[in-house]
């Protein structure tokens, strides 16, 4: 299985890197807070896939599976907290636009 599994590594890596680029681009370019979170989600998806891929190739799929379950739980909590922060910001600013934030200045 190892040789075949190893041949998977680079093709998958290409697609994971593409997914990372999409997520990062989304986070960097957008002015919308929710869209930034969606970009973050895409990045986490890429990492999930990478972790599972690493486990499969190295022959420890069971362990990485356990790790991914933990990762998903943490991801949910972080996203819920983040949307809570976004909702509160929206309540105070009446906008989701990053350009209308940035009031913190000396």
């Amino acid at each position, binding site marked *: 299985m190892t040789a075949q599994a*190893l041949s998977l590594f680079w093709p998958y890596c290409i697609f994971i890197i593409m997914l990372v680029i999409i997520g990062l681009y989304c986070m960097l370019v957008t002015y919308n807070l929710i869209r930034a979170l969606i970009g973050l989600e895409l990045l986490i998806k890429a990492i999930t896939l990478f972790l599972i891929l690493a486990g499969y*190739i190295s022959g420890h799929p*069971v362990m990485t599976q356990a790790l991914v379950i933990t990762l998903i739980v*943490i991801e949910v909590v972080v996203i819920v907290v983040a949307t809570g922060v976004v909702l509160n910001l929206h309540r105070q600013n009446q906008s989701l636009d990053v350009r209308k934030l940035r009031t913190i200045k000396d």
Partner: protein
Amino acid sequence: MNMTLDIVILLALILAALWTVMTRSLLRSAIGLALVSAILTILLFRFDSPLAAVFELSVCSGLISVVFISTISLTEPMTMKEVIKHMKDRLTRFWYLPFIVVIVGTALSLLDIRLNIKVPPAETQKDVREVLWNMRQLDLIGQVTILLAGVFGVAILFKEGRKK
């Protein structure tokens, strides 16, 4: 493993991600994210990780979509004028993305990296529940703790403040 099938699924994943980022409405963006999760679920199944796949499907494409969609519906929609301005604005900024992705993809596929890993001795195949409960107990405690933190977070953030 059938490589062509993998490539097709991966391409679908990238297309769904692109649609998520490029689409105009936030709501469709959230649905696109759920789609990405669903496709990822198939990949996880193919990599012998059924439990993680089920988690991904139920939690990520289920729960997180619900969270996003309710956030979007709770925040005010934009007026028509803003939407049109916003669309033009977005078009100029997001136009490059597909090209960048395609170019990087081709460039990377020209590289031919092959790993030569001495795979460490494989463990005796255990059940994932056993691994989670016996070997990664600390992570379980961590999960409980972070859920508690999340509960307090929600309690604080969504409590209607008695504002001064």
